[in-house]
């Protein structure tokens, strides 16, 4: 089976730390990860341990909120040059005036295949017409999806109140063709996140649910909350993608969490590969098309 991990933060890569002295402060500070760096080769072995073929690399631009990036677009582009298993996303700070231009540059020059936003950590309002909406419009024009953090943030200063999935409802109506992936199934607002996805075909969820217990415990609990695997199979099978949220948790354990659900093979294939492939433009189907 081919697998894509839709949610990896490459904040631990030794080679990035070696060439950027400020990265350690950004990772330990705003991001809140205290573990030492590991070589890029180790990250690729982590993917191997989960039988994962490709992974989406997420940078984060927190210039306004924290005066730093937590891995930049340029660094993610460099990682993608090192291995064709690594898929670059872009990040821009919506509060920075030239953000739409920066996003366009990251897509056209660095090959970014989507945008990462984290309203909890970047501290912006997702329904801000002056700052967020131009970013969404640029994504529509570029034809790229948005992976957006929703729910609890493990970042020390992350504000979950800015990342409630229902704050997206008006945005979803205003941008009816823009694919959003709600990260972490929006935990603790899993039902609200699922509601949005069940109603709107361009809304997806990722499986990186991490709150307590093992990933196996967390994912199972979240899925039970929305009516169990039947709900996934009947109403969301083309709108859920596998994500680990590495390095908050190891990709292998995130894989074990999905395997433990004992899903029908078609649903498992869609979660691990098919849906992500469509969102990333790796096939010719429309994102989240039913």
């Amino acid at each position: 089976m081919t697998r894509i991990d839709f949610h990896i933060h490459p904040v631990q890569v030794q080679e990035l730390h070696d060439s950027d002295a400020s990265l350690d402060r950004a990772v330990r500070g705003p991001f809140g990860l205290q573990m030492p760096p590991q070589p890029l080769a180790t990250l690729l072995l982590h993917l191997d341990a989960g039988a994962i073929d490709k992974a989406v690399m997420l940078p984060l631009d927190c210039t306004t909120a924290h005066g730093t990036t937590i891995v930049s677009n340029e660094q993610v582009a460099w990682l993608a040059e090192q291995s064709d298993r690594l898929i670059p996303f872009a990040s821009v700070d919506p509060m920075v005036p030239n953000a739409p231009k920066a996003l366009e540059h990251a897509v056209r020059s660095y090959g970014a295949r989507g945008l990462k936003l984290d309203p909890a950590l970047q501290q912006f309002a997702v329904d801000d017409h002056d700052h967020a909406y131009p970013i969404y419009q640029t994504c529509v024009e570029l034809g790229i999806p948005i992976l957006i953090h929703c729910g609890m943030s493990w970042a020390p200063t992350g504000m979950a109140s800015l990342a409630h999935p229902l704050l997206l409802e008006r945005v979803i109506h205003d941008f009816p063709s823009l694919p959003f992936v709600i990260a972490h199934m929006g935990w603790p607002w899993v039902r609200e996140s699922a509601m949005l996805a069940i109603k709107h075909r361009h809304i997806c969820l990722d499986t990186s649910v991490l709150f307590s217990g093992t990933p196996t415990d967390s994912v199972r609990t979240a899925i039970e909350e929305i009516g169990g695997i039947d709900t996934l199979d009947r109403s969301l099978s083309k709108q859920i993608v596998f994500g680990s949220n590495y390095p908050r948790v190891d990709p292998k354990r995130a894989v074990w969490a999905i395997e433990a659900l004992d899903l029908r093979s078609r649903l498992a294939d869609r979660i691990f590969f098919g849906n992500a492939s469509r969102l990333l433009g790796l096939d010719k189907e429309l994102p989240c098309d039913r």
Partner: protein
Amino acid sequence: MRSIVLRRTVQTPGDTALVNITSDVHRAVAESGIANGLALVMTLHTTTAITVNEGLEDLEDDILELIQRLVPANAPYRHARFLDSDGQMAVNAPSHLRGALLGMEVLFPVEDGKLVIGGRQTIYLVELDGPLLRNWVVHVLGD
């Protein structure tokens, strides 16, 4: 008496693995310059172990399967939560418990500048939560 600590790293290949470090230990003892004394081989992690056994592939498989049976992957472990001091999920209780069973070090005599080791004894760093770049040491004490 002299005390020499030699630090080593190894990239482990997967979730669990027995990594043969015997030749590295021999080299470390030679590098220490100590002729007679003791050599302590120790891991610096709590989800790896150091053990000695006969260097056969079937035994390596049996050892890994044994510790996986003794400490199952899925059980209601309490060490399954977010760990603030790391900034990541601490969900590897089986790895820690397997490490506790196997132990963190082994000790060998050193005689005439060489490790005193049985012909069938192979020294392993046991990876229990990889793949990771791991750190271990050889501490040689003597004259």
